[in-house]
């Protein structure tokens, strides 16, 4: 008797799992950055167009494949064609890389969360120097939030070559993060359904990329989730719902992020003004309280004319405070979450409360996405008869979590953040584009669009709209090919790759070149997932040839 495949208790659980997977940290820290860089509200135009033309069709495709084949990514693509097992394998490899480095973000969120229960918040004040006459030098040059991030949290080394040792505090937080993920995936499917510049071509490319990665296409997670669906589930409706909710979360997060930017910019502008006022008051011994923001320019002019000598001495120290320049500092990624947001939070009233809420939210987003990633790895493993007959489900999950945790300790070293940036920038971008391209070509041209259409109709009872067919067969593959070509040429043209390293003596980031072995590792990251596709196809071809060679054709 065949063991029945576990199912979602109800379709709502499946939708929530997908939403919780798709809505992740990228919605919070990548989308607002892109909006700011590419013209604010007008970025929504390419974004929504790409959502409709690329995001929804591809999402629907992945869900439909998973629901139809009722297997994880490896099995599903092997069912379509034995030569395509490599696509599923490539997805698993990419998911493995992602889960290795993604959970360190949750570890950082835990670290900040645990430190939020103090008064004052540890990132709001600089520590004292050794003879207690002033503040620590690195903290003075940078800012207290940057100091807490780069020195206390990461303890970052000056370059990627100085590895340093594993930071035990971060290691503990990483262990906790993996334990929480393990707790959630332990029971399998039932437990993962938790509640969860227009002319500028770069704007369009970034919109396409953002939709692509934001929805989490190509990792195999969506296929894994959909494979646990009842065959009659209406995945078309779900695809639209999930993509719309993902996008509206991004837009909502941008609104919040922009208000935080505004608060921070205003605060910094005002403290800059106060510093200038204090400097002038002290240098010219003016009456305390005489200089205010409103008469500053006037008085500066008067001082320049009345005491020209002394004024020219003081002039180099006077900064030109501008609200525009404060607003123009756009940050993305970990810099946004852990530096900019904490800086804004420390200046609010009841900052402990906001801090706890904020990092709790980050944790929810991060762990939700982690569950999807681990599902992408575990589903093919538990589907395979070889492995699941020897080990129970709990042991497989535990083993995967343990291996990832141990590898993840690399990111807790002093140079760990540099390796994190490498993985974040290169492990998933190019390979995913290739994987999704092969997926779409496989479904439309290898499996056959008509056959897929009739299977879907038999499964869900609905006819496939002409719109989806047009997108799958024509528009989306063209878009992905052009994205792929663009990124490839961009990497080749840029030449040597560079990274931002933290210089403790200056208190700011400096640009450095990657050493040779780091470049080799980047190449290995990209190659190890993309090469799966041709290698497995070749391997299957050879095996088949050999089999055909052994048994001569029957007359």
């Amino acid at each position, binding site marked *: 008797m*065949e063991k029945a495949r576990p199912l979602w208790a109800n379709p709502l659980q499946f939708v929530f799992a997908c939403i919780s997977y798709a809505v992740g940290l990228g919605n919070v820290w990548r989308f607002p950055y892109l909006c700011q860089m590419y013209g604010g509200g007008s970025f929504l135009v390419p974004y929504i167009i790409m959502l409709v033309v690329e995001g929804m069709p591809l999402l629907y495709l992945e869900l439909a494949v998973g629901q139809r084949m009722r297997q994880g990514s490896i099995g599903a693509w092997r069912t379509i064609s034995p030569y395509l097992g490599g696509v599923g394998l490539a997805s698993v490899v990419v998911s493995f890389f992602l889960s290795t480095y993604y959970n360190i973000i949750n570890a950082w969120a835990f670290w900040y969360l645990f430190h939020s229960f103090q008064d004052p918040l540890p990132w709001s004040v600089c520590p004292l120097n050794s003879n207690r*006459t002033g503040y620590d030098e690195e903290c003075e040059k940078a800012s207290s939030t940057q100091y807490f991030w780069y020195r206390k949290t990461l303890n970052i080394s000056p370059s990627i070559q100085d590895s340093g040792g594993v930071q035990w505090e971060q290691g503990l937080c990483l262990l906790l993060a993996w334990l929480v993920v393990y*707790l959630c995936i*332990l029971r399998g499917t039932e437990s993962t359904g938790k509640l969860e510049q227009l002319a500028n071509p770069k704007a369009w490319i970034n919109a396409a990329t953002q939709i692509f990665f934001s929805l989490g296409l190509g990792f195999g997670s969506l296929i894994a989730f959909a494979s646990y669906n009842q065959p009659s589930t209406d995945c078309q409706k779900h695809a639209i719902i999930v993509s719309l909710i993902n996008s509206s979360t991004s837009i909502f997060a941008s609104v919040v992020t922009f208000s935080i930017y505004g608060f921070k910019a205003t605060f910094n502008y005002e403290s800059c003004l106060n510093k200038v006022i204090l400097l002038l008051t*002290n240098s010219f011994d003016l009456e*305390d309280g005489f200089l205010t923001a409103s008469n500053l320019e006037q008085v500066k002019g008067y001082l320049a004319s009345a005491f020209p000598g002394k004024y020219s001495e003081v002039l180099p120290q006077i900064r030109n405070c501008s609200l525009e320049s404060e607003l123009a500092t756009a940050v993305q990624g970990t810099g946004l979450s852990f530096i900019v947001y904490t800086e804004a939070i420390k200046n609010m009233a009841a900052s402990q409360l906001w801090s706890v809420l904020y990092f709790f939210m980050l944790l929810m987003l991060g762990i939700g996405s982690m569950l999807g990633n681990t599902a992408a790895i575990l589903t093919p493993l538990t589907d395979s008869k070889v492995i699941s007959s020897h080990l129970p489900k709990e042991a497989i999950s535990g083993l995967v979590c343990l291996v990832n945790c141990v590898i993840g300790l690399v990111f807790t070293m002093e140079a760990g953040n540099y390796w994190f940036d490498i993985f974040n920038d290169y492990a998933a971008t190019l390979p995913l584009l290739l994987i999704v391209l092969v997926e779409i070509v496989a479904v439309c041209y290898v499996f056959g669009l008509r056959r897929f259409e009739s299977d879907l109709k038999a*499964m869900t009872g609905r006819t496939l709209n002409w719109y989806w067919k047009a997108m799958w067969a024509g528009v989306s593959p063209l878009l992905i090919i052009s994205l792929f070509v663009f990124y490839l040429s961009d990497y080749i043209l840029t030449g040597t790759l560079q990274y931002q390293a933290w210089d403790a003596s200056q208190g700011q980031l400096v640009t450095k070149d990657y050493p040779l072995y780091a470049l080799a590792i980047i190449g290995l990251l990209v190659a190890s997932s993309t090469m799966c596709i041709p290698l497995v196809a070749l391997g299957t071809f050879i095996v088949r040839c050999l089999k055909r060679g052994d048994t001569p054709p029957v007359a």
Partner: protein
Amino acid sequence: MRQNNSITQEHTRRSKAKADGENAFKVRLSIRTALGDNAYAWDTNEEYLFKAMVAFSMRKVPNRETTEISHVLVCNVTQRVSFWFVVTDPLKNHTLPAVEVQTAIRMNRNRINGAFFLNDQTLEFLKIPSTLAPPTDPSVPIWIIIFGVIFCIVIVAVMLLILSGIRQRRRMSKGPTEVDDSEDKCENTITIENGIPCDPLDTKGGHINDAFMTEDERLTPL
């Protein structure tokens, strides 16, 4: 004669108090920043209090117990409010070394601040760095405590789930043998769950359970 003497004395004293003298210190007060509407005006009486506080601080230093208010000289008072001061020793007719004055002021900084309702930031002695209060470090960092609590909760939850999973699997594998045993016994205790007797739902010896229809049969095989 005596008048001339006192004038020249005063003059020599004033010249010793000139700004930038190596034993002179500049003081800066930001009264309005500190007190806002309750700010008091800086006049000669407040200067007198300041001189008294400096003299008081010097008296705390061994060998300087005889310092008088008149030994402290203040000059160059500006609108800021800022001025220079120096402590003299009329017996030896020189200004006291800066190091002594510095130590004296540092030890009594709180009293001086308190006399004027100011703090280290609003009553500044340039060249005399104030000792900053160290942050209170509890013996065990707070974050480890919270980490420990959450860690223990998660470990307990994981253990519970693993154990219940093992127990469930053991119950399922023992299931068919128990059914055979109970058939031999005359009295069968029929376990009832949710009002439905469990007996009819158990798989009996190799029959396919209709409640679980394998999905593969419904789809057209490739």
